[in-house]
């Protein structure tokens, strides 16, 4: 396989996973045929001209498939999802609300542990609900993403529940177990959002907000000290915005799971 073909195969990741699973191989085959024709024609810069045409072809057709996927997801709203999908989707909506409610209502710090434990448990429930639909399109990626987010939330929930607190393993600034747990929590959520985008079983807004919110929210981790430094006010605001976006991301994914049945060709959550 030539370098051109390898690059083309990588670029096919621009397409939704369901489309890719069905058409990536024949598309790569067709590109290889075009490449062969360009070389046999012997025209100067033939490969370059082919790439110029291919770039436009890839972008427009990938965009059309993403838009079509959203239309398909929207059309599936006419079908009622299963009871379990609705229940787990509502859990996701509640998870997001539990996370962002302090931004709206002042809540005493004493409620922080039970609130975070509830959030972690609800996110785990949502991840289970989302998994069946995501796995129908991309089993391996869905499994890795779900496992990461369930492990991360389980770990954080366990630490808060057991009152482990901020144990420092190595006696250094980065030795905090809580820091590792927090990093894993935000990182897993960002990875989950990215995986959801790539899989394409749900419309992209929830996943995009989850990625952006998690990456921005990570700046608020205490051990980084960003919210207490010279630019503390800026990072504190950024962290709050990140947390809010993160919460809204889970809400959108949960709402979609609860309100919209699986797109055509995928098993329902109750299957």
């Amino acid at each position: 396989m030539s370098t051109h073909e390898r690059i083309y195969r990588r670029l096919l990741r621009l397409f939704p996973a369901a489309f890719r699973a069905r058409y990536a191989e024949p598309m790569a085959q067709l590109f290889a045929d075009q490449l062969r024709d360009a070389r046999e024609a012997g025209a100067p810069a033939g490969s370059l001209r082919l790439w110029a045409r291919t770039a436009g072809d890839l972008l427009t057709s990938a965009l059309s498939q993403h838009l079509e996927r959203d239309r398909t997801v929207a059309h599936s709203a006419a079908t009622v999802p299963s009871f379990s999908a609705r229940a787990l989707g509502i859990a996701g909506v509640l998870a997001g609300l539990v996370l962002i409610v302090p931004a709206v209502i002042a809540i005493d710090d004493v409620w922080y542990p039970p609130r975070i434990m509830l959030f972690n448990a609800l996110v785990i429930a949502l991840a289970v609900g989302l998994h069946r639909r995501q796995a129908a399109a991309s089993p391996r990626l869905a499994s890795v993403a779900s496992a990461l987010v369930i492990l991360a939330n389980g770990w954080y929930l366990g630490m808060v529940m057991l009152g482990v607190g901020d144990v420092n393993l190595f006696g250094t600034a980065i030795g905090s177990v809580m820091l590792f747990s927090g990093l894993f929590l935000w990182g897993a959520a960002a990875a989950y959002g990215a995986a959801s985008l790539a899989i394409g079983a749900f419309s992209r807004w929830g996943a995009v907000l989850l990625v952006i919110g998690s990456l921005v929210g990570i700046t608020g981790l205490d051990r980084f000290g960003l919210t207490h430094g010279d630019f503390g006010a800026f990072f504190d605001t950024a962290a709050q915005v990140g947390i809010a976006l993160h919460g809204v991301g889970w809400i959108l994914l949960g709402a979609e799971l609860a309100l919209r049945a699986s797109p055509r060709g995928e098993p329902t959550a109750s299957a």
Partner: protein
Amino acid sequence: MDTIDTTTQPPAPSLARVPMYVLLAIGPGERHGYAIMAEVARMTDGAVRLGPGAVYTTIKRLLDDGLIEETDDRPDPDLDDQRRRYYRLTALGQAAASAHVRQLEAVVSAARPWVLRADA
């Protein structure tokens, strides 16, 4: 090719330009993506050159609309790559292609006299 009984067929859907090119390029036989792309370029005298993305997003739409179907028939392995997928028109696809060609013929018949006079 089987004849089409238009009295029992649903009305042929109207299609955009590229899907119609692909439908006509598949024609009465079975064609794979590369053959479709080459036939579209030949039919349009090179004016329309479809890339792999355009070919397969269009094929997907035509499959979804029931205008074409994938066939399991494969030519001799010595003659062709077995990974290729072949497509053929369904009865609905044949009806859509026929309807489109008739429309084109009507347009050409109406316009030809004055176009030829103008060119002369």
